[in-house]
């Protein structure tokens, strides 16, 4: 078993090395001006205004074939690989991407010009006024210009540091994959809008708490009260104004067209260089380590909660079947099973985070554990119920005929056998639970998958982070399967 695991693993690593050397096969450029974009495949970030503009562009005759990505880095990756012909994005991130990738360039002609502002929930006019006041102050005292020089013009090195260290939090929702406005640098999230928020927090005497979540979830987080303020390079649009209030304008922005230069990558990085860039530099492996840690915590705690819930529900349902007891509770359990098994895990996670716990400030790990535990409980209960029903009911008869209580018989005779019957199916459930936790990024948790994603957004390199994340999942799952197989063998020994 272990041997087989290793050989599979080495196969994976071999594939990684092989594909790694094969990369960088980009095709020629096809876009030379904005009007060339009609009928081309063009990447945008979901929820970004470029998405809206691109979808409306060209009327019926020269429509753009829009490909939507959750992360800009993914769109850029696709562009480099020749999967799409251009990426529409804001000019500052575009400059950053070009710096990172010499085989890309920006069209001189802008696609659209627009303005950025922050978002604050409707009804929170007090914060809105404070923000605008702080912004005005920053313009007057020169801090704003200094920050512009640091981040946009590249001519300064001024940084604003938060002064308030303790006290109430001011929660900022952002998507830190949008340089130079907000992005990861080492262990920190930095950027123009982040430092703006520090200034605001200081002015309010609060400590800034940064929540790094998916771009298309930021406005939601603010309007539902999960965050006080959203800064993620938001363009002011009429549509968004319906659900949220915008602050005064922060910076003017141009949506530009990023294309390939058509040249081959000058010197392909070697395997070791890529490895260094993805894992060693700036201790980037820590994203994977932290993610792995969170993934394991969520999976283990959710599995325990799931088994607990599952047992409870199974006991109610079996008790109802044998004795006709617990009518109402049984009905509730059935509703629970139907709802959980009838809706996607992702939707349940979002509902629990954004609706159930919308007004409480609760640890996200706990939210994930609760969401996955509740989900898993439904599947576990059906597995255990099957396991219980597979136990020959004659044993219950015999136990009761000896004067034992129904409950005593269940606990001492039926459940142990049911557990053993259910073990293979429970393992499968736990394995899918581990893999399902990969959607935690949607509530801004750095799980294993998102850990890899962060590296990906820093290095613009898909291969290493993705494959290494896959390998880590694989090792966990294979290790778990081996352990359970052994346990099963040991339990079976009793019965030959």
């Amino acid at each position: 078993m272990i041997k087989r695991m290793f050989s599979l693993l080495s196969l994976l690593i071999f594939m990684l090395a092989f594909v790694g050397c094969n990369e960088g096969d980009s095709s020629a450029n096809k876009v030379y001006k904005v009007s060339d974009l009609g009928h081309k495949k063009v990447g945008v970030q979901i929820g970004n205004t470029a998405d809206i503009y691109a979808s409306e562009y060209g009327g019926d005759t020269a429509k753009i074939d829009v490909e939507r990505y959750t992360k800009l880095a993914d769109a850029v990756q696709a562009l480099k690989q020749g999967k799409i012909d251009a990426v529409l994005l804001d000019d500052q991130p575009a400059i950053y991407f070009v710096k990172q990738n010499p085989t890309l360039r920006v069209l001189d002609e802008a696609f659209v010009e627009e303005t950025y502002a922050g978002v604050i929930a409707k009804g929170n006019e007090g914060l809105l006024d404070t923000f605008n006041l702080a912004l005005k102050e920053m313009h007057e005292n020169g801090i704003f210009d200094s920050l512009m020089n640091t981040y946009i013009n590249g001519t300064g090195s001024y940084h604003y540091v938060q002064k308030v260290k303790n006290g109430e939090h001011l929660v900022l929702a952002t998507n830190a994959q949008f340089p130079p406005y907000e992005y990861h640098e080492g262990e920190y999230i930095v950027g123009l809008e982040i430092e703006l928020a520090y200034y605001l927090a200081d002015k309010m005497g609060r400590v800034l708490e940064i929540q790094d979540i998916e771009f298309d979830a930021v406005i939601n987080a603010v309007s539902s009260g999960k965050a006080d303020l959203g800064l993620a390079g938001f363009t002011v649009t009429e549509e968004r104004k319906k659900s949220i209030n915008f602050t005064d304008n922060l910076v003017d922005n141009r949506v530009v067209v990023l294309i390939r230069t058509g040249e081959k990558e000058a010197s392909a990085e070697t395997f070791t260089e890529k490895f260094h860039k993805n894992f060693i530099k700036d201790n980037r492996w820590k994203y994977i380590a932290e993610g792995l840690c969170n993934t394991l915590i969520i999976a283990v705690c959710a599995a325990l909660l799931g088994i607990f819930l599952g047992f409870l529900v199974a006991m109610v349902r079996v008790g109802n079947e044998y004795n006709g007891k617990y009518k109402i509770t049984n009905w509730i359990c059935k509703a629970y099973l139907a709802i959980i098994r009838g809706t996607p895990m992702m939707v349940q996670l979002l509902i629990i985070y954004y609706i159930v716990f919308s007004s409480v400030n609760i640890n996200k790990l706990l939210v994930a554990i609760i969401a996955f535990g509740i989900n898993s409980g439904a599947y576990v209960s059906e597995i255990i119920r099957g396991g219980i029903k597979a136990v020959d009911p004659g044993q219950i008869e015999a136990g009761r005929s000896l004067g034992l209580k129904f409950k005593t018989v269940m606990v001492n005779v039926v459940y142990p056998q049911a557990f053993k019957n259910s073990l293979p199916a429970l393992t499968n459930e736990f394995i899918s639970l581990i893999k399902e936790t990969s959607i935690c990024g949607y509530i801004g948790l750095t799980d294993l998958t998102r850990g890899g994603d962060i590296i990906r957004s820093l290095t613009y390199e898909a291969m290493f982070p993705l494959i290494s994340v896959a390998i880590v999942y694989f090792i966990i799952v294979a290790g778990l399967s081996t352990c359970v197989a052994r346990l099963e063998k040991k339990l079976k020994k009793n019965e030959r």
Partner: protein
Amino acid sequence: MSEKQVMIEVKNLCKSYDDKQILKGINAEFYKGDVVAIIGPSGCGKSTFLRMLNLMELPTSGDILLDGKSILAKDVYRPTIRARVGMVFQQFNLFKNMTALKNVMFAPVKLGLMTKAEGEKRARELLQRVGLADRTDHYPAQLSGGQQQRVAIARTTAMNPDVILFDEPTSALDPEMVGEVLKIMKDLALSGMTMLVVTHEMGFAREVANRVLFFADGVIKEQGTPEEIFDHPKDDRLKDFLAAIKK
């Protein structure tokens, strides 16, 4: 016979499932030390009758008295009755997750009738008595059918019940194992245990039972000593039944 002490008295016992009436008024008395064989065609309600005696099934009407007291009264705690009226099943129904020893000692220890040490000592004694001293640590799946049924008998005996009900205890066994189980039951009968045995083993009924009841059409059609029932049957249904069995 008058000095014999009545243990169980059954009065006009009826049982229906849905609209179907299975038992239509059973009247019988069972005495301490009695070994009663119950025979009758399949589906006539023999199992149902036994299961009502230890309250695994509730009668539709009628009464059951144990030592003169109704066990159907509202204030009766049913597990206590079941502990006094043991049952041995056709399919053995051993606890599959427990060794033979644990099977025997589990209930008396759990119910607080014995300490763990006493329970274990008694379980070993009983297993030795049924010839399984060397199988104490085996799980049911590691035992033959005959051995399993002997463990089941030991398990029921361990509760020190007033009476043991046997529901076709040898019907699920391979023929070569029937003898070993019947021998244990005979020993038990000789030790003075009160036993009600539903069986198709006419040889056993004739040799060990002091009374035979013939169930048919939801009532006791005929009853008497083994000689009266087997050698001089009066009822036509009983004659047909005995003829069918002999074939």
